[in-house]
């Protein structure tokens, strides 16, 4: 079961830091962590990644772990270097005012609904 990144953008009312990048990507799950070493080790390819970290290393981690997109939570804005790198690498960079708990909760409901579980 997969959803498109566009569906997630709509559902969570995300802002696109790089408008149009990767909206047609399919997303298979989500991972929440602010430790990049943990994300490198445990996120699954196709996940969207919810984090507070805005450092440019998040782009490299997203590319390496083959993540579908990065969602910066609680109003965090990407550093200029991060934005530039994400643009160069074609990594979708989304932002929300929602704290990670609520963003993850909404995503969880969305995935369950798509699976017909609720």
């Amino acid at each position, binding site marked *: 079961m997969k959803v498109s990144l566009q569906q997630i953008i709509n559902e969570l009312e995300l802002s696109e830091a790089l408008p149009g990048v990767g909206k047609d990507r399919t997303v298979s799950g989500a991972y929440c962590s*602010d*430790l*990049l*070493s943990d*994300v*490198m080790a445990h996120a699954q390819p196709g996940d969207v990644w919810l984090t507070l*970290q805005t*450092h*440019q*290393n998040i782009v*490299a*981690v997203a590319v390496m772990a083959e993540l579908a997109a990065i969602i910066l939570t609680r109003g965090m804005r990407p*550093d200029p*270097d991060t934005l530039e790198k994400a643009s160069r690498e074609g990594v979708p960079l989304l932002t929300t005012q929602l704290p990670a708990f609520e963003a993850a909760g909404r995503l969880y409901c969305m995935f369950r609904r798509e699976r017909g579980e609720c």
Partner: protein
Amino acid sequence: MLREFPADLHVHSALSPCAADEMTPEALVRRARSQGVALLAVTDHNSAANVAAVMAAAHARQVAVVPGVELQTREDVHLLCLFGELETVLDWQDAIYRALPARKNREELFGPQWLYDVAGRLIGKLDRLLLAATSFSVEQAVAEVRAREGVVIPSHVDRPAYSLLGHLGFLPPELGVEACEVSRRADPAEVRQRFPSLKHVELVSFSDAHRLDEIDRPRTVFLLEQPSLAEIKKALEGRDGRRVTVRGLPVN
């Protein structure tokens, strides 16, 4: 003439709330000296308020002191920041204080923050909360320290918590740091193998002592003409015959 300087450039005084009360400037210098430390840096969390006291205590014992502080960046990464002069670390401290949240320390949660004067007398406690992140990013911190002709050594990079590799995954090549610290029980060769981004930096190892008995025989030895930050910088870059070597782990 080049000489060997066994070094411990990461020691906390009783100013760090997590350090033991026994870490007075006088006692920690005495312990360092007895363990053969010739080059010492006291690097308290986000403050250099005890550096002058440590320098005074060390002066009487022929131990050279590098003024320093352990900064916490907004990514919760700990960075050792080392400077050539006391005035410079104090100027950096002012910038750090402006970048810290204006909150008071809660001693029952974090511990007391003891302050000492240059005569080694206890003069009170620092009120502001030191165990917090500043608003500096890792990049901003490195730029600020370099602008003050200082050196940044990311702390205990092999550990998962409060470390550059733990929190940011790998060493950003653009950062251009000369060296990283591995924790006192880590094997530099093993750490280098585990983290490929460390390939081109020197690795050093200091005690990160929070108690007196954690200051032990230095594993890191600098080959320098004199015990100054400029010379340390040369050693970390391997220039003019200056070098740094790290002993492997003692066999248990």
